[in-house]
């Protein structure tokens, strides 16, 4: 009961606080924390669904109406949640360490960016492109299929590889895709190379909604579908086969799990989520170039999965949220704050911060602090924030 009151109160108070202090990062973090509390609190599930639904469908867009940046953060969180959930299938469930995951995101992004912009005219000639905006919705599926195909393409040569070897090959695959995107501007200009593609068409939006709000809802919808698909896969013979492969590949095969089919399916499913989000990403950004799909992005998504708890759906969601918010808000905010102190010439322990050499710029600590957080997490909570909880089954009484 106290939990219910607390959950409702927290969400209400923090939402109100965000409205009053629209520029305070701390207050926005409190709002996010209240959502997390509502998720873990011991409250009836109808209340949980109502609260979270209300917060994500009404409060968040309203907040975003007043502070567009928060909506941008929320949208990016959503994109990375879908990526983390996709990678979670490959790494967390099937145990196939993939260091080139962002390649599928890139494949999805380019599969809309090219026909959705005048770029395709350079390939096919004529004047038929960009495709009309409605095509965007069809290309969500095209991006899904193309990325799934790329997943199978990657899966085929690495079927016999395990562990470190697999990781190296997937790393190479990720780099190959990026380098291809970088260099396929000749002999035929497919990707426009490092200059990137722009302007990429945006989908038609109902009710004259602003694009930022529309993309937020679109991402939210896709994340909901991805979570549903993930849960259904996990609680089926397919998900169990993946986990069996992760636990003991040889025994899994001897128990009748078809290795090739299961692994390819894992790669294809994981890739398809990234593909869909790639399409959304390219339309949202209007501009993409290979710089958006670096190795560091793959590692970032992997960090989300590991930080959240490998193989756990709530873990992947939370991991993606924490890492994205850390990168976009907390660490940025921290370095801005330190910079202010420096510019104001504050003295700490008799040392004037204004004398700090440029090599020690606060902005340079961002990645370091992120690294320290990762290390501390792995030392003190290696299983992740929300580790997998084995689902206890309701067992029918045997008579």
């Amino acid at each position, binding site marked *: 009961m106290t939990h219910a009151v607390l959950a409702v109160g927290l969400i209400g108070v923090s939402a109100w606080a965000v409205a009053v202090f629209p520029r305070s990062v701390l207050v926005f973090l409190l709002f996010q924390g209240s959502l997390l509390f509502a998720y873990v609190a011991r409250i009836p599930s109808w209340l949980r669904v109502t609260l979270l639904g209300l917060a994500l469908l009404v409060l968040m867009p309203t907040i975003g109406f007043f502070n567009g940046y928060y909506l941008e953060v929320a949208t990016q969180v959503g994109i990375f949640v879908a990526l983390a959930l996709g990678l979670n299938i490959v790494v967390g469930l099937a145990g196939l360490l993939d260091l080139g995951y962002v390649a599928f995101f890139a494949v999805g992004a380019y599969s809309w960016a090219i026909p959705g912009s005048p770029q395709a005219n350079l390939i096919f000639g004529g004047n038929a492109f960009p495709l009309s905006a409605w095509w965007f919705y069809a290309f969500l599926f095209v991006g899904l299929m193309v990325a799934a195909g790329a997943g199978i393409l990657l899966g085929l040569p690495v079927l016999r590889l395990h562990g470190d070897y697999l990781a190296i090959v997937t790393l190479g695959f990720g780099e190959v895709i990026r380098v291809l995107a970088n260099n396929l501007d000749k002999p035929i200009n497919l990707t426009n190379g490092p200059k990137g593609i722009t302007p990429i068409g945006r989908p038609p939006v109902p009710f004259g909604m602003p694009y930022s709000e529309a993309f937020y809802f679109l991402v939210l919808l896709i994340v909901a579908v991805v979570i549903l*698909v993930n849960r*259904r*896969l996990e*609680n*089926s*013979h*397919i998900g*169990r*086969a993946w*986990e*069996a492969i992760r*636990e*003991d590949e*040889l*025994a*899994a*095969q*001897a*128990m*009748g*799990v*078809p*290795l090739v089919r299961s692994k390819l*399916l894992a790669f294809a499913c994981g890739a398809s989520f990234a593909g869909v989000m790639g399409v959304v990403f390219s339309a949202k950004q209007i501009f993409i170039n290979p710089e958006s799909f670096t190795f560091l992005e793959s590692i970032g998504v992997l960090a989300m999965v590991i930080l959240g708890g490998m193989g756990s759906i709530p873990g992947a969601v939370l991991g993606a949220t924490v890492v994205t918010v850390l990168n976009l808000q907390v660490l940025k905010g921290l370095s801005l704050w330190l910079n202010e102190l420096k510019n104001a010439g504050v003295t700490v322990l008799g040392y004037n911060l204004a004398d700090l050499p440029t090599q020690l710029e606060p902005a340079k600590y961002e990645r370091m602090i992120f690294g320290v957080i990762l290390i501390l997490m792995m030392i003190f909570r290696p299983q992740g924030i929300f580790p997998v909880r*084995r*689902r*206890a*089954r309701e*067992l*029918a009484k*045997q008579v």
Partner: protein
Amino acid sequence: MPARFEALGVTKRFGGLTALAAVDFALDTGISSIIGPNGAGKTTLFNIFTGLYGADEGRVTFRGQPLLGLRPDQITALGICRTFQNIRLFANMTAIENVLVGMNTRVALGLWDVLSHRRRFRRTEGELAARAVALLDRVGLQANANDVARNLPYGDQRRLELARALGSEPTLLLLDEPTAGMTQGEAGALMRLLRGLVAELGLAIILIEHNMRVVMEVSDRVAVLDHGEKIAEGPPREVQSNARVIEAYLGTRGSGPARTRRA
């Protein structure tokens, strides 16, 4: 229908070492044991029967269907399943999930059934769970269904491996030292369970076993491997008194201390 299982002239070489030399083996029903000193090639034979290894020469058929060249999961689908000498459970999954994985070849659902969650899917999942519980019950692990396999005691893990193998509805079961690490009492109970399975389901079982008391008690036939060769086969009593078998186990008189062999 008898599960006619036949191996003819199975030969396997690892580099210069001949692990199996033209081994013949046949079984219709009942329990047949394979014994032999360490490194005799017993587990290698199992690995060939279940498709984990290829054979260099020979033929293996099950109900007239050739097995060599098939993948392990295809062989499991045909009704042959096994347990492992060094228990290979899915350690971080629960007992019932382990058994459910064993049923994988008997699930006739596609990706779309899973995603759409149609009534067919839910009914099938329900049936699978009920059968898995029944199998756990059968091996005496009904109370541990939701326990993570890693946390089960050793003997329970062996029995869970048996339940998992039974999940694939085999007609031929290959058990690799199922009583290793069990007390004599536990071993006896397991053998009664195996006997029951043979009697009720018409299962054929091939047993690799070091516990001679168990072997002599439970087997209909015994085959003896030594250095990759089958040196004797027949009813337990006959094999027990076979001169070559005694030699393989104890060494010949005058040849010094008993030979010890390592794999």
